[in-house]
């Protein structure tokens, strides 16, 4: 899922400093699961905006809402239920949601309440770790299911590098060297010889280096 973290309250308050009516808009997708922008977080942020604005002596009406998703145009239409009740939207969705509102509501002011961080999973309660970089050319079948693009600090395709010490990365001893993990895992699944294959120079265009990416499924378009 997409992992996000709420921005500092004062940064958000500065975005809406001139607003009179704010819609704090959550998303029931990834940001609900990672506790950054679901209904509960909407309730908290709305309260903080009201308190912060009141402390500054400003009057503001804050409306709370949450959409099924903010990354789908059919769900964005549901914003119409709050028509006339806001002059600014503070979106608690990931950056995709903010962009979608901006795309589909050309005259609506929309602000991001979260920093969209990475693609990850819940490693433990309250802990999320990056697992995928969305690079567009998956090599997990060659690396025992562990991603060197997302989990190697240098995104090396042939590792480990000389900075791997005792299975840890030189950038931070808390970070596991994914190439050590790949080596160990390939051994456990009887595929250690895969480590002898030299990966060719990579074409990074699929990773966004060729501009914004687009996926098209002809069988689904009409």
């Amino acid at each position: 899922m997409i992992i996000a973290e709420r921005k500092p309250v004062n940064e958000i308050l500065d975005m809406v400093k001139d607003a009179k009516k704010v819609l704090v808009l959550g998303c029931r997708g990834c940001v609900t699961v990672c506790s950054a922008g679901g209904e509960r977080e909407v309730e908290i942020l709305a309260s903080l905006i009201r308190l912060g604005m009141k402390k500054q002596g400003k009057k503001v009406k804050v409306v709370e809402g949450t959409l099924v998703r903010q990354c789908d145009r059919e769900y964005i239409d549901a914003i119409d239920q709050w028509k006339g009740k806001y002059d600014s939207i503070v979106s608690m969705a990931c950056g995709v949601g903010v962009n979608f509102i901006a795309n589909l509501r050309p005259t609506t002011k929309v602000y991001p309440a979260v920093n969209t961080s990475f693609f990850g999973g819940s490693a433990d309660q309250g802990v999320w770790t990056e697992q995928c970089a969305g690079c567009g050319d998956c090599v997990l079948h060659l690396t025992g299911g562990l991603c060197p693009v997302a989990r190697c600090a240098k995104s090396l395709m042939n590792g480990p590098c000389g900075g791997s010490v005792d299975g840890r990365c030189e950038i931070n001893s808390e970070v596991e060297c994914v190439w050590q993990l790949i080596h160990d895992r390939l051994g456990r699944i009887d595929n250690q010889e895969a480590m002898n294959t030299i990966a060719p120079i990579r074409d990074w265009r699929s990773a966004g280096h060729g501009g914004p990416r687009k996926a098209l499924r002809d069988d689904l378009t009409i």
Partner: protein
Amino acid sequence: MSFTPNIQAFCCHYTSQQTIAEGKEGLKQDGMPENVILNRLVCGGKLQISDLLKAFEDGADGVYFVGCPPDECHNVKGSLRAAKKVAAVRQALIELSVEPERVEMFHMERGFHPEFVAAAQEMNKRITALGPCPFKGDSK
């Protein structure tokens, strides 16, 4: 000018059980400040950050939670969860440049203890000294 703070005390069912049984008059005799309003929850695990923030929105000058000792929660981890929620609100108050001492967490044994009243007295004294909460502007 005299100031009587609005203090909202949230407490779990277990730590407040005997206190509630004392009744209003009994508590008054025990020295419980009358301006401390008890909000009883089934467990500290039920406490939400929004409950504490809402209390400030509704005019509280100080807010606190009383829960079981960290490792003696009747429901195992409710008291620890409540402490985390209180800490989050403290952080939010710091971000908004409001005294973090306006929100507090107390851990204490279950049943009626002088400590329950002492916590209320401590918060009453502390919040009275701090004065009205900066959130209580005129611009609601």
